[in-house]
C-alpha cells in the first residue's frame, strides 16, 4: 500500500494538473487581494472588473484571488506575474485603474510605473 508520503505526492501532481488546466500557464497571472481588509478597501469591485473582462473575451490571463500580504495602507493590491520577469505589484487599485491595467499592461505589456509599489 502507498505510504502517506507517496499519496501526497500523487495528490500534489493532480492538484498541479488541475491548476494548469485552469490556465495557470497563461502568459500573465493576475492576483487580486481578497482578505477582509482588502475588500473593505474596495478589492471586490476591482476583482469584478477583471472577471468581466475575462468573460468578455480577455484571453491569456490566469485570474486568482489571494489573501492579505500585509501592506495595509496600499490596499487593494493587484499582482501581475509573468514567467521570467519580476512580478509587478500595483497598490491602491481602483476599478478605473484596473481597466487601465488591463488595457495597457495585460494587453500591450506596458507596465504603469507610477502605480507600482516600490
Amino acid at each position: 500500500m502507498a505510504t502517506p508520503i507517496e499519496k501526497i505526492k500523487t495528490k500534489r501532481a493532480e492538484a498541479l494538473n488541475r491548476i494548469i488546466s485552469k490556465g495557470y500557464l497563461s502568459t500573465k497571472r493576475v492576483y487580486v487581494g481578497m482578505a477582509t481588509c482588502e475588500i473593505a478597501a474596495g478589492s471586490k469591485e476591482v476583482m469584478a472588473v477583471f472577471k468581466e473582462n475575462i468573460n468578455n473575451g480577455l484571453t491569456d490571463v490566469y485570474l486568482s484571488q489571494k489573501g492579505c500580504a500585509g501592506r495595509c495602507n496600499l490596499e487593494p493590491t493587484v499582482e501581475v506575474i509573468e514567467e521570467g520577469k519580476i512580478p509587478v505589484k500595483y497598490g491602491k487599485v481602483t476599478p478605473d485603474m484596473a481597466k487601465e491595467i488591463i488595457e495597457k499592461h495585460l494587453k500591450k505589456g506596458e507596465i504603469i510605473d507610477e502605480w507600482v509599489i516600490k
Partner: protein
Amino acid sequence: MKKRNVRAEKTITFCNGPGCMHLESTKIIDALKQELQKRDLSYKDVKITISGCLGMCEQGPIVIVNPGYIIYGKVKLSDVSQIVEEHIIKNKPVVRLTIEQNHLYNRFFRVFGDIDFFGKQMRIALRNCGIIDPENIDDYLSVRGYEALAKVLTDLTPEQVIEQIKISGLRGRGGAGFPTGLKWEFTRKAAGDVKYVICNADEGDPGAFMDRSAIEGDPHSVIEGIIIGGYAIGATEGKVYIRAEYPLAIKRLEKAIKDAREHGFLGKNILGTDFSFDIEIRLGAGAFVCGEETALIHSIEGSRGMPRPRPPFPSVSGLFGKPTLINNVETWTNIPVIILDGAKWFSSIGTEKSKGTKVFAVAGKIKNTGLVEVPMGTTLREIVYDIGGGIPNGKKFKAIQTGGPSGGCLPEAYLDVPVDYESLSKAGSIMGSGGMIVIDEDSCMVNIARFFLEFTQNESCGKCTPCREGTKRMLEILTRIVEGKGQSGDIEKLERLGETIKKASLCGLGQSAPNPVLSTIKNFRHEYEEHINDKKCTAGECQALLSYTISDKCIGCTACKKVCPVNAITGQVKNKHIIDQQKCIKCGQCVQACKFDAIVKG
C-alpha cells in the same frame, strides 16, 4: 507615451543577516556594483536590495537573484563576475553556486522580495499569505501543503514529533511564550482516554489582525498544524475557537476543513493510516477575556467565559475535564515548517531563548502600516524605520506600544531593544500576541493609557474584585486627569492601584491591565505631572486642556470670526482679533480657517 518601463529587469538581494554580513558581503556588494558599472548596466537593468536574515546562515554569504528565486550560497568575491556574466547578462544561472531552494519559509520572497517593506522580513508563519488562493486547496497542495502531515504519518512516532517541536525551540505565540514542545509533551503524558486540541483564534487586542490575516490568507497551514498536534498528543478531536466578528476567516476555514476532509486529511483513517482526527469550529462572541485559555474552555463548554485558577493546567484537565492542548493560530502555522524545513534549522533563527520569527501588526503613526514578520532579535528600530519607513509628516517618534492592552509603552531610549520575550519584558513591556502601535509627538501618553485601560475595564469579566473595581477607579482618575481636574497624589494612587490589581487578579487580563498606565507613568511621568500641575497637554490632544490664542501674525481678515460657532472671537477688520477664553469651546475650527498660521494651539 508618457509612461515608460523603468523597473529593474533583475533584482539581486544580499542577505544582511549577522552570519552573512561579517563574511564578505559588503565587499561583494561593492564588487558587484563595479562589475555592473563596467558592463554599463544601470539601475534600470539591475536593482540591488539588502534583505534581513534569510535563514541560510550556514551557507552564507547568500545572494538571491530574482526573477526565479535562484539562491547562491558561499559566494566569494571571485564569483561575482561569473554571476554577472552568465546569470545577469546571458540569463543562465550559475549552477555550481546554487543551493537548495525548495524550503517552505520565505516563499513570498519570489513575488515581494524586491520591495523594501517585504524584503527585510522573513516569513515562516505567513509564508503563503498573499501568494496563494486561500479558498483553493490545490494552491496549498502545490506549495507542498500537507506534506508535513504525510511525513509525520509516514516516518515519525508521536514522541518523535514532540521531540522535533522541542528541538525547534518554538514558544507559544499567543503572548506568554511557553515552550510549545513541553506543552505537547505534558498533554501527551497526561492520563486520559480522550484528549482535545484547541486552536485559539480569539484575537482581541485592539489593532491586532495577525491571526485574521493568517486564517484568511492561508487556512490550510493552520489546519495542517492542528492535525499534526492531534497526532502528537493522541487526540481525535480538535476545535478552532474563533470570534464571530471574523466572518470571512470563518468562511474560509469552513471551506478549508471541508476540502481537507474530501482529500482525506481529516476524518477517519487519515491518508490510509490508523490515525483519525476531525476539526470543529466554535464561535466566540468576541469577549476579550475568552482569549485566556481557561475562559476559552469554559466558553466552548457552554459556560460563561470566566477564567479559573491554574493548576490544574489545561494539559492535565482542560476541555470537559480532559487533557487539552491549546495553542494560538501563529503557533500552529509554524508547525509544518518545523517538520519539513527542520527543527534544527528553525532553532538557528532568532535569539538564544526565542526561536523563529514573530508576526507583528504595525499600526499608528508610521509610514508603512501592515503585517511584519521578522526573526526574533530584530530591534524595534529596524521594524519602525527599515521596514515601517519611519514616522510620516516629519514628526518625531515618541513611543512604541507593544503587546496591546496588556503591554507597555517604550520611549525612544528602548528602540534598540531586540524583540524577544525576555528583552521586551525586561524593558517593561511584553511580546504579547503581536500588536505594535507607533506613537508620535502629537499623541498624549496619558490619553493613550486611558484608551487601553478603558478597553480592559470594559472587558473585565468581573470575577476578581481588584480587576473589576480597581480598573474602574483607575479609569476615573485618568479621565479626570485628561479633563484637567487631576489632583496631586493621583499618580501615586494610580501606581498603588495598579500594583494591587497586578498582584491580586487571577488571570492575565487583570494581571496585565495596569501595564499601559504603569509603563507610561514610568517613562512619561512628566506628562502626567504637566496635566495635573500645570493643566497642560503638550501634545495638544486633551481638548479640555487646550487653549487657543491669536498671535501677531493676525492681519484681521475676519475668517476665524466667521467660523466660530459660539462667537468667541472679536476684532475689527485689519486689526488683530482676540479669543474670549470663557466662551471658547476649543473646537479648533478657527485654526483651520486661518490662512496665516496666526492661531496658536497650546
